[in-house]
């Protein structure tokens, strides 16, 4: 009676089992290390492939610029400009939606509303691109004409207006729609975690609902909102298909929102030119990709550091 469990216990403790234990641990460790290695490999392979472009004769680069950096400058500017515009539009809306779901909507329908916003994140970017060019661009073009005609003295709306509506502002609107669910999801989580007692105390002192939100919810959520907007920025920086399909690019650096000469973005430029690129042109495109990788990596790393520090402070479960 006692021999059966004893023998099986001995079987488990035999060296074979220990070896399997070890093998399982090592395979798990290996998978973890593989992630470290793959991130390093991305950097290494991109650097190897972009070196020829850095040392090539600038005349061989696409558009024959004066130097490699003259080739990159409009691209880098357009990338950041479009992403920042998108963020400016998306952030207030996202915070509004997050507050609406967490504090204003009836509790029974709040989760349904959250699901509807998540649906936006489920739409593939290429579909957003198709919608942007076929529905949004023709729709906003009359507004652009009106803006340039009446507010043309503002440098942002300098005439002439784009005849197609395929401007950087249209791209930024679509990008904003795409990052709204990301920012909303994180803001919502932070707002829900805001201490209940603080909110009730504020209400008990006679604060209106908005005063309660302003004094007890928003200050608590500030780091969360900052990191959420940085994650959204990272997404907008790297978004490719919308830019490739909607924007009509030119090699310029300007701040005009409604014109027909728009600064290109790194990701959009790669998507448009990679299929036909050859020789050192491929290396130049990969080099711009490396720059994009570094920018987004830095933005994301800072955002994550802020979130992680927040967790240590509040002790909230992640």
């Amino acid at each position, binding site marked *: 009676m006692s021999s059966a469990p004893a023998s099986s*216990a001995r079987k*488990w*403790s035999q060296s074979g*089992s*220990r070896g*399997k234990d070890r093998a*399982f641990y090592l395979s*798990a*460790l290996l*998978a*973890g290390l593989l*992630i*470290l290695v793959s*991130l390093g490999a*991305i950097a290494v392979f*991109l650097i*190897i*492939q972009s070196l020829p472009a850095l040392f090539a004769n600038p005349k061989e680069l696409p558009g024959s610029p004066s130097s490699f950096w003259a080739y990159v400058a409009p691209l880098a500017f357009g990338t950041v400009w479009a992403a920042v515009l998108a963020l400016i539009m998306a952030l207030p*809306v*996202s915070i509004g*939606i997050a507050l*609406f779901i967490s504090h204003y*909507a009836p509790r029974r329908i709040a989760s349904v509303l959250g699901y*509807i916003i998540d649906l*936006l994140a489920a*739409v*593939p*970017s*290429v*579909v957003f*691109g*198709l*919608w942007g*060019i076929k529905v*949004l661009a023709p729709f906003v073009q009359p507004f652009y004409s009106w803006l340039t005609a009446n507010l043309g003295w503002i440098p942002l709306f300098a005439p002439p207006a784009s005849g197609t509506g395929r401007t950087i502002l249209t791209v930024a609107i679509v990008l904003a*729609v795409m990052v*709204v669910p990301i920012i909303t999801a994180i803001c919502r989580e932070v707002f829900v975690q805001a201490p209940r007692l603080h909110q009730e105390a504020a209400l008990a002192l006679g604060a*209106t*609902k*908005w*005063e309660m939100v302003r004094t007890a919810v928003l200050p608590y959520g500030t780091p969360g909102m900052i990191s959420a907007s940085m994650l959204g920025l990272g*997404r907008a920086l*790297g978004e*490719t*298909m919308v830019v*490739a399909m909607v924007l009509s690019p030119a090699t310029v650096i300007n701040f005009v929102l409604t014109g027909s000469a728009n600064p290109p973005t790194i*990701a959009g430029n*790669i998507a448009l030119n990679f*299929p036909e690129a*050859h020789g050192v042109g*491929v290396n130049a*495109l*990969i080099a711009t*990709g490396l720059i*994009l*990788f570094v920018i*987004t*990596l830095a933005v994301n*790393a800072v955002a*994550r550091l802020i979130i992680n520090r927040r967790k240590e402070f509040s002790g909230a479960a992640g």
Partner: protein
Amino acid sequence: MSTTVHRSPSQSQSNSLTAARLPTWSIWVLLASSLGVFAGIFALIELAQGSGEFNLVAVIVLGALLFDALLYLVSSLVEGRRRGLDRLMTSLISTAFLVALLPLVSLVITVIVDGWKRFDLAFFTQSMRNIVGAGTEQFSGGALHAIVGTLEITGLATVLSVPIGLLTAIYLVEYGRGSLAKAITFLVDVMTGIPSIVAGLFAFSFLALVTGDPGIRSGFGAALALTLLMIPTVVRSSEEMLRLVPNELREASFALGVPKWLTILKVVLPTSIAGIATGITLAIARIVGETAPLLIIAGFTASMNYNPFNGSMMALPLFVYTQYANPGTDVQPYLDRAWAAALTLILIVMLLNLIARLIARIFSPKVSR
């Protein structure tokens, strides 16, 4: 006591308990009248121009702005400045939600209406080989080659990323202590933010160097790029699910003399398998619509290609892009096919999300909470 005697009007207004309140109906009256004003103005403009286009969006946007301004003004005058601000913010916050709904509704309606035109049998049974323009009555062109490519590429990416992602999650939850685990967690988070096009460039650089072919295009490379995008999602969701498994189960298993690896395989994983499956399904839904990496490394083709290790391979998101970007002289049939493919893509993503929810509901862990 003296304050009750010398009470100025402004003080009595700031007392929220005794101050006047706006009746509920007044807000709706305000909203209707401000919308009505602009509806009237734009109706007059339309009559004057005779263009036959009533600018509904402008009416709603300008009407909402007028409503906000009026609401703040009226409420400030009647109820005091603080309540006025409160009403204004409530209105703005509700508006923010509606603003986000507009593009979603517009997009869904457009995709369904335009996609339905070519959502037919030929679309799912034919490739684009030798199809020009609208094609013939019998062969009108379809996305079969793209659907096959999407299935193979996504399947390969899933096969590659699930073991790696799951094992990493197991390492982080069951073994990981100290700085290595922290570094991996951090890098997984950072990996979530890698632009998809960079993943495509990496797959291209890697394969071009390994094979020595500077213009390499293959479905396997696309799967490699998608794997890179899928791993962080799988790791995060699996990690969360493994952490939900109660420690008592592990301790009970150890107490019976079961070694750690068997405990994980036979106790921890079966308990959390539903959640992990849900996470994996959602991860697939996330990568199935990725276009940019495929554009770089999968290439374009109009023909069937079942072999992911050799030659260009089409995929559904790429099909949408090429039909839009490289149409023939007759643009409309290409656009119709693009919308039909977009509809198919959205249906696939919705279906995957639905499956994920069903898995979570039916096989939810049988642990009393």
